[in-house]
């Protein structure tokens, strides 16, 4: 499958000489059509720099970006992608309709087709009633939705969304997640950066984690979290310490009047359970799954 976005060995440095800071260091990624790709990492990790380098707003020191085969930063490349910035600052002296008309014209759209597209997007994003309102009177949530509208206006194959749910209430976040899933169903590719790991886990097909400008890990959620797979048994006991000693060196998470026994493999689970039951615990429930992405994130970021 032809990649929508190819990033090869991308490096960006801010400043010169002793003040030089490497914002990106040899990052390589490839996005295919119809996937949601999550970019995670702590503040200052290089997520926004990566997106800006794809847009051509920052020229890299070395490396290559291609959007649908076109050189990154070229007008042809930008016509294939839509971008929503992290902070929704737009021309607030314009009305939403006027702003989208401006964006449409910059994308080469015009006439009735542009007006129809604006109307349908404002409807889809719940802004139709506010079309004639000046952007300066928009709430943060409305600005975020307008940001999505301007990014989607020319129906690009690739959407770059920088923290699209930042500062939104839970319902608005859910709407953005639904929208991303709908875009994927339409065959579009979404690259989005986020701090919300649960959100990334929920909607992303693939994830990349960057820290200190370097790509730490990337792949599907299954690939990334496989080493963190675990089996968890909930045990009722008043003597957690006794159970802990019996099951050493397995991990025990203490709860009120109970504890969680964590087994790394299915093979070791029966043996550990047997020891716990012999120590007086009562089995309540067994669950299997992954450690959350949050734990992986914490390990990588704190270990860096």
């Amino acid at each position, binding site marked *: 499958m032809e990649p929508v976005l190819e990033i090869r060995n991308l490096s960006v440095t801010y400043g010169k000489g002793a003040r030089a800071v490497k914002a990106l260091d040899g990052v390589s990624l490839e996005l295919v059509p119809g996937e949601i790709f999550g970019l995670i990492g702590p503040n200052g990790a290089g997520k926004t720099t990566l997106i*800006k380098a794809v847009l051509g707003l920052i020229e890299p020191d070395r490396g290559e970006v291609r959007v649908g085969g076109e050189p990154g930063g070229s007008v042809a490349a930008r016509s294939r992608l839509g971008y929503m910035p992290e902070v929704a600052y737009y021309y607030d002296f314009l009305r939403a309709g006027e702003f989208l008309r401006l964006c449409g014209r910059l994308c080469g759209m015009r006439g009735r087709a542009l007006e129809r597209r604006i109307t349908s997007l404002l409807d889809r994003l719940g802004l139709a009633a506010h079309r004639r309102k000046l952007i300066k009177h928009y709430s943060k949530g409305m600005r975020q939705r307008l940001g999505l509208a301007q990014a989607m206006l020319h129906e690009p194959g690739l959407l770059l969304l920088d923290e699209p749910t930042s500062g939104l209430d839970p319902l608005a976040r859910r709407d953005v997640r639904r929208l991303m899933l709908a875009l994927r169903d339409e065959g579009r590719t979404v690259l989005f950066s986020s701090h919300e790991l649960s959100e990334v886990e929920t909607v992303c097909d693939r994830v990349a984690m960057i820290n200190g400008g370097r790509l730490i890990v990337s792949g599907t959620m299954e690939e990334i979290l496989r080493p963190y797979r675990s089996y968890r048994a909930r045990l009722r006991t008043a003597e957690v310490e006794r159970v802990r000693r019996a099951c050493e060196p397995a991990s025990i998470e203490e709860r009120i009047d109970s504890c969680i026994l964590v087994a790394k493999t299915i093979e070791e689970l029966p043996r550990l359970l047997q020891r716990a039951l012999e120590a007086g615990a009562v089995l309540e429930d067994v669950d299997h799954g992954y450690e959350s992405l949050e734990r992986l994130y914490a390990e990588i970021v704190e270990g860096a």
Partner: protein
Amino acid sequence: MLAAERAIGRAMLIELFRRKDLYVLGLLVLVLLGAAASIDFFGVEGVEAYLRELSTTLTLLFTVVIAVAVVARQIPREVERKTLVPILAKPLSRWQFLFGKFLGAVACLTAALVVFWASSALIEAFKGMRLTGLLVQGFVLQWLGLVMLTALALFFSTLVSEAPVSVTLSLLAYFLLKGFTSNIHILASGATGFGASALGLVYTVVPHFEFYDPTQMMAFAPLQKALGFLDWLFFAGYAFGYTAVFLAGAWLAFRRKRF
């Protein structure tokens, strides 16, 4: 044609209108009208020349201030308000963005100039003065100078990141160039050898904004003669040539800037 550039220019005009920046223009027109109306015509020899000189000088000063205030702040303000990034992420080149800003500024300044010159003409008519074709010539000459200044201010706007610095540099450059370039010629005529050649070269190379000051032409009767075709060809070519140089400089400063 130039759809993206026109869209950027239109947005700029809407901003000036909605942010009430252009209301300053109305205030300045009132100053112009008030100053002219205060002149007493009865029994004063040469008052027509004085009136013309006053209104042309004020028009020039006001439009220069408006031009610099509007244009020199453009890019720093966009960067500061973070509105530049979503626009530059669209499929338009940085040249298109700059040229759009230039077109918007020229449209705004043309409108301002029309208002000022129309006001001057009204005053002259009200005072019983004869309106001549020189008014049109003065208007066009000043417009050419403003186009040049717009490109210069846009250049400074791309060069520095602070709006006040960009405004100051543009005003300094304009008034220094306008005030002193003609003196270089005088200095050159008094110098000899290498000094004369160097001063002559400087005189030739630096932009001459004083060419586009119609005050003398408008005010003093002996000089009130129409410019010929070749004169216009020179003035227009000179202004557009320097405009192109300043715009190219602005593009060079802006094209690889990181945002």
